[in-house]
């Protein structure tokens, strides 16, 4: 990837991180850790990879993205707003009564949300149905899905993994957000899911291991996925990530799974990100 392009993506993901933190502070609850760990992947997908039209969110030929780890909703909302699905003003309404930005994504309320998720394990399976429909209709649509590494403890994930390979859904690309932490602590302490890649391999998937914060690696993995069309095999990209990435006091801390930053935390975090001016913009925007 060209350096200027990489720089641009890094700037966008920094801004989205700031938005995630401001949304969560405003809401007073929500999930910062896992939103920050997956935002680089979402940034690449929505800015560089996927085909969609915010003005025509139900365009049948579009690619789909399903956030199976629905608690990372702020990351999805931030990127959907950035690419033009709705005004960033709406981000201020996260988790408030009447808002389309529900605590977990709700497809009936917000365009760009392909399926309601939040109950873990279900998004990957629903996304499998979308990929199957695209194959049946001979549409070029690709289906991208993101699961958490803790999430794959759900048995349904493996039922879905079996079926997606069985039905030869090579239009399916799964990201595993491998930040290593879940609410109660380290994934391998709570319930060991490793080795992740080998498990998907044994179910008949193509597997890649990447750094989920490196846009070059994300790009290469997605190029591999594209080149894999026609193979009859779905692709799993196990992305090593850092929970709370880019905010020093949140990084690799399970306690930041589901706690919103205070105003002080937010200012510290924005300062670290070099995004203090985001707060002024956020405050200046009319409600």
């Amino acid at each position, binding site marked *: 990837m060209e350096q200027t392009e990489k720089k641009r993506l890094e700037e966008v993901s920094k801004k989205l991180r700031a938005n995630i933190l401001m949304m969560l502070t405003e809401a007073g609850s929500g999930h910062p850790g896992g939103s920050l760990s997956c935002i680089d992947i979402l940034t690449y997908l929505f800015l560089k990879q996927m085909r969609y039209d915010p003005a025509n969110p139900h365009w049948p030929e579009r690619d789909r993205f399903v956030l199976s780890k629905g608690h990372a909703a702020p990351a999805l909302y931030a990127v959907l707003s950035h690419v033009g699905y709705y005004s960033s003003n709406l981000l201020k309404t996260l988790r408030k009564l009447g808002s389309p930005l529900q605590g977990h994504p709700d497809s009936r309320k917000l365009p760009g949300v392909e399926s309601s998720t939040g109950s873990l394990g279900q998004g990957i399976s629903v996304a499998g149905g*979308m990929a199957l429909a695209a194959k049946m209709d001979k549409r070029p649509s690709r289906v991208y899905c993101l699961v958490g590494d803790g999430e794959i403890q759900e048995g349904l994930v493996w039922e879905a993994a079996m079926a997606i390979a069985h039905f030869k859904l090579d239009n399916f690309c799964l990201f595993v957000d491998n930040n290593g932490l879940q609410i109660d602590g380290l994934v391998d302490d709570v319930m060991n899911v490793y080795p992740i890649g080998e498990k998907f391999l044994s179910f008949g998937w193509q597997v890649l291991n990447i750094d989920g914060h490196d846009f070059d690696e994300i790009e290469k993995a997605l190029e591999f996925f594209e080149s894999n069309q026609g193979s009859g095999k779905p692709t799993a990209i196990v992305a090593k990530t850092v929970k709370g990435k880019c905010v020093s006091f949140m990084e690799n801390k399970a306690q930041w799974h589901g706690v919103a930053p205070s105003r002080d935390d937010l200012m510290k975090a924005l300062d670290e990100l070099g995004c203090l001016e985001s707060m002024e913009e956020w405050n200046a925007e009319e409600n």
Partner: protein
Amino acid sequence: MGEVLVATRDVYGKTLVEIGRENKNLVVLDADLSESTKTAMFAKEFPDRFFNFGIAEANMMCFAAGLALSGKVVFASSFAMFATLRPYEQIRNSIASQNLNVKIAATHSGVSVGEDGLSHQTVEDLAIMRVMPNMQIFVPADGIATAKIVKQAALCPGPVYIRLTRPKTEVIYDESYDFVIGKMHVIKDAPRADVGIIAIGTMVPNALKAARMLEEEGYSVIVADAASLKPLDRETVVRIAKSSRLVVTVEEHSIIGGLGGAVAEVLAEDFPAKLLRIGVMDVFGESGSPSALYKHFGLTPEDIFRKIFKQIR
């Protein structure tokens, strides 16, 4: 007069094929029971629109949601136990919450699945499906009703639960039967009656037989079929209660939360009336032939007659 017996699941399979010929958007899913649920008939004619998920019902339901989100009309089938209680949360969070076009057609409901015993006998499905927002529930009383209901379900938007049974059941309707969502079918009417029986599914023929026995004893009886359990025809429930001394519900399901529960809710709110709920009395099933089980649970026409007679004589 000989009874014509038809298995509702057979009609279900045939009707899917009929709909599939016209509606290319129809997709049928099963979880390793396609020979028993009769979706195999569809699979044979439309292999490209049939998918077998193996023994993984939760995954089948979520795939159904994804297919429906992509514009398909999906019928997902299994035995009632594995189509409702097992994947309940997936149905709630992925199908019903998004009001998707997924029709869950469950065979082998109630106690008449028989010898397999309690792990396969579903007497709770109507109760738990009824409490789910957006979910409509249709329970055909015979083969004729099954064909009409399955066709209606394919046309109406949103999720539907259709409850079918394993054994062959008596045909009570003819082609003039009309299924209307939200309406009861009053089979036997009277301006004033001693008893108003509201029955559902397999118990409609038994209720009709019990009604005949009551009539032989000189009582007048109303019999209604609540095939549209949700939405329920509240108006007709109240009308029956107003015209009868005793309201009776009859179902091959727990008396808690199903038809009896639904009718009790309407009566308590709109027209308090004396109610007798006949069904499975808050117990699990056990192995036995369907006819032995009907006797065991007090669901035969004679049992229904006796229970009502005891209350009104």
